[in-house]
């Protein structure tokens, strides 16, 4: 849906139906669409997790050092392949 929406066709939905109900397909699709929209927006705002993995409250600068400035992206992996 995020990197090649044209591939989410009737055949793909038929395959999904072997594992998920119609209700679950709507739930998954809406969840994924919501996340595609919001994570790109959030990415432009440049904010990072408030807490370190050990539970400490950290500054945004330290959070960047801990977690990295940009996430490892599925899209980046594919373009590099």
């Amino acid at each position, binding site marked *: *849906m*995020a990197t090649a*929406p*044209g591939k*989410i*066709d*009737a055949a793909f*939905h038929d395959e999904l139906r072997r594992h998920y109900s*119609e*209700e679950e*397909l*709507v*739930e998954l*699709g*809406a969840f*994924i*669409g*919501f*996340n*595609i*929209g*919001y994570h*790109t*927006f959030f*990415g*432009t*705002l*440049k904010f990072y997790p408030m807490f370190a993995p050990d539970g400490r409250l950290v500054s945004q600068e330290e959070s960047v050092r801990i977690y990295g400035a940009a996430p490892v992206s599925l899209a980046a992996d594919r373009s590099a392949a």
Partner: protein
Amino acid sequence: MTHVAPLAPEAITDPELRELIARCEELGVPDALFPRILARVPAYAKALLRAMLMSHAEGNVDHRLKEIIRVQLARFAGDPYFSRLRSRRALAAGLDEAAIDAGSGDYDDDPRFTPAEKLALRYADQMYLDPGKVDAALYAELKQHYSEAQIMELGAFIALHYGMQVFMRTLGTAEPAAR
């Protein structure tokens, strides 16, 4: 026919959801089709439709500008359903098809748009086309024309509507519902 069929109107019995669908139909965006698909998961449908209506039709950014942005994004998402829908409220307020098309074209050189409107169109355009360009400099420029609240209003509107357009695209080519 969409890949996931919409529920029949009579199968939707939740009064709150029915009222939200009626509000969608009154605005025209979305029409009844997308809500009737979402209605398979009523709790999701209510949360998402309420957020879509609020982000599009309420707040402190001009609804006509949001409608131009919404169509720009739907065309970019390749979603024929949301691309063809139009807000009745925006049309009643004077928005025309020429302005909608201009918002999806070379808007930066179009004298019908103010500098603030051009900037909002660029914010939406680059959010998904080239998000690396939505940087500190662009936010600083946005703050010259919009309050922080208006920038969050625009960003949240853009993110939610684009996300739902991408989802709807994968459900298959669909004509807006007949009224």
